[in-house]
């Protein structure tokens, strides 16, 4: 008996018991005690923020700093709001190829779900405009004529009368608004991406924005009718003049050459 009990007490038995006890306690804690506390945190929102933070540290933190505080390569994101994130990432502008004043559109590399998570994280850093809903940017209740007036007052100077875009200083440009989702147009007005000034709801109301979007859809949408035919990029007199000089004058020269050309002569057989 004595021998048996002596053998049973292996030198490592205490360690094993200790590990088992720890595992049991930990397991119990994990299954019972923390369960009630996790309930409070376990909303979709905080999960999105967590996921967004992970995506942020991989894709954005290099330029915008680990906590969104900004660095020499990118501005601070505190207070820019979810709308700014949805615009910048949703149009492919972010992540940028290189820092600079003009960030061009490119292929979107995040899914909408990931963009929403990133937006949730950035929104948690400081209050800012949220992502607009379809009721805000949709066509219901919009006044297209008023939208045209507002567009010409506020937007046309850079984006051209029908949103074809235009040149700015030092190689910067205002992009064409053709094919841009209504949501992104709304967000751009609200947040003022890159060098575009912002048009917050206090100076350009939600209804104003809805009108502008409806106007753009009317003059620059997929089914927009151009009664005059070839619009030549809709850029105004420059492209039209170029077309007239090259093709109009070219056709006249061709006809003049034809009028005066040598006719086929008979050869004496």
């Amino acid at each position, binding site marked *: 008996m004595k021998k048996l009990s002596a053998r049973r007490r292996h030198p490592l038995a205490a360690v094993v018991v200790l590990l088992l006890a720890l595992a049991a306690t930990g397991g119990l804690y994990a299954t019972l005690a923390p369960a009630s506390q996790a309930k409070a945190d376990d909303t979709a929102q905080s999960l999105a923020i967590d996921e967004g933070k992970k995506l942020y540290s991989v894709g954005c933190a290099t330029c915008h700093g680990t906590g969104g505080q900004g660095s020499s390569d990118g501005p601070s994101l505190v207070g820019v709001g979810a709308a700014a994130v949805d615009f910048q990432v949703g149009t492919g502008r972010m992540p940028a190829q290189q820092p600079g*004043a003009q960030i061009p559109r490119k292929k979107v590399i995040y899914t909408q779900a990931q963009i929403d998570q990133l937006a949730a994280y950035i929104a948690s850093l400081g209050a800012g405009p949220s992502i607009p809903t379809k009721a805000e940017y949709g066509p219901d209740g919009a006044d297209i004529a008023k939208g045209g007036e*507002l567009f010409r*007052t*506020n937007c046309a*100077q*850079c984006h051209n009368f029908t949103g074809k875009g*235009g040149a*700015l*200083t030092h190689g*910067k440009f*205002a992009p064409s608004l053709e094919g841009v989702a209504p949501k992104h147009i709304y967000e751009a007005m609200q947040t*003022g991406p*890159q*060098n*575009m*000034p*912002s*048009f*917050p709801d*206090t*100076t*350009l*109301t939600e209804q*104003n924005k809805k009108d502008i979007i409806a106007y753009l859809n009317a003059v620059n949408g997929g*089914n*927009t*009718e*151009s*009664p*005059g*035919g*070839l*619009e030549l990029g809709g850029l105004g007199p420059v492209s039209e003049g170029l077309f007239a000089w090259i093709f109009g004058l070219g056709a006249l020269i061709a*006809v003049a050459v*034809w*009028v005066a*050309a040598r*006719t*086929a*002569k*008979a050869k*004496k057989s």
Partner: protein
Amino acid sequence: MSSQDIPEENLPAEQDAHGAVSVADDKDPFADPGLPPHEHRIQDIDERAAKRSERVVAMLFTVSMLATVGFIASYVGIPHDKAIYVFPIGHINALNFALGLTLGVALFTIGAGAVHWARTLMSDVEIADERHPIEASPEVKAKVMADFKQGAKESALGRRKLIRNTMFGALALFPLSGVMLLRDLGPLPGTKLRHTLWSKGKLLVNMNTNEPLRPSDVAVGSLTFVKPEGLEEKDEDFQTQIAKAALMIVRLQPENIKDKRELDWSYEGIVAFSKICTHVGCPISLYEQQTHHVLCPCHQSTFDLSDGARVIFGPAGHALPQLRIGVNDEGYLEALGDFEEPVGPAFWERG
């Protein structure tokens, strides 16, 4: 003279014998080689080819007739608001397209038919037309002079001086009525160019909402266009007034404002600048919120709004005028006076 009248001797082989019409000598060292031999066209020789050309011309004229009929038919038949999709052009108005196409074809085929007719069927024989003096013959000249003298004598213009002098007077005075009409170019502008509708206490009214602005409405990086309180778009002189009073409102961080006067005239970083370019008066509002530059789309004048709207590029002669603004008792933004200098482009008396 048609080409058919002179068939044989003008064929190339016949003409080769002609050669030069003059040879070089002491007086004229350059020989005149004469006209090159005339070559006949297929249509001049082959009647079947001529018939073919005739049919082509007739076909072009017929196409023109059909196109004209098509023009009338489309004018009557196509509703003015119908849109169609035409491949390279896109969604266009069906009536415009049909009218333009038929009218263009109708005109072009008339011209093309005429050109083809002239090139293949009308005579193409080269002819020489000698120059002749423009001067009239001595007899004609003598007759005209005699007629003139007789007319002058019969009118008694030289004798009856009263008629002559009053006639000269009437003719000399008449153009003055044309000169007088130039007065309609006036009246002179007076001091109109030096004043705008802005004055002390006028509220800054947002052009989008038609409501007065509060400082809290204007976010940093935003751009707002305002008009003076009391000016409505339905007013008769709205365009005249807004052309001078148009104002853009931007908000900078006060520490970003480099110009001391600009800072003094701002309100918590909100600055108000004239929207009229000082070069030739284009509306200028291509505002880049990160650089604080404003670009004029007409001639690329660029102004730095963080440095008193100084001109940093382009042909503009002076900075954009700034309007002094403040806040009234009710918390609305108001003007603290008119612009200190005339807005818009320079003019002679601007100083």
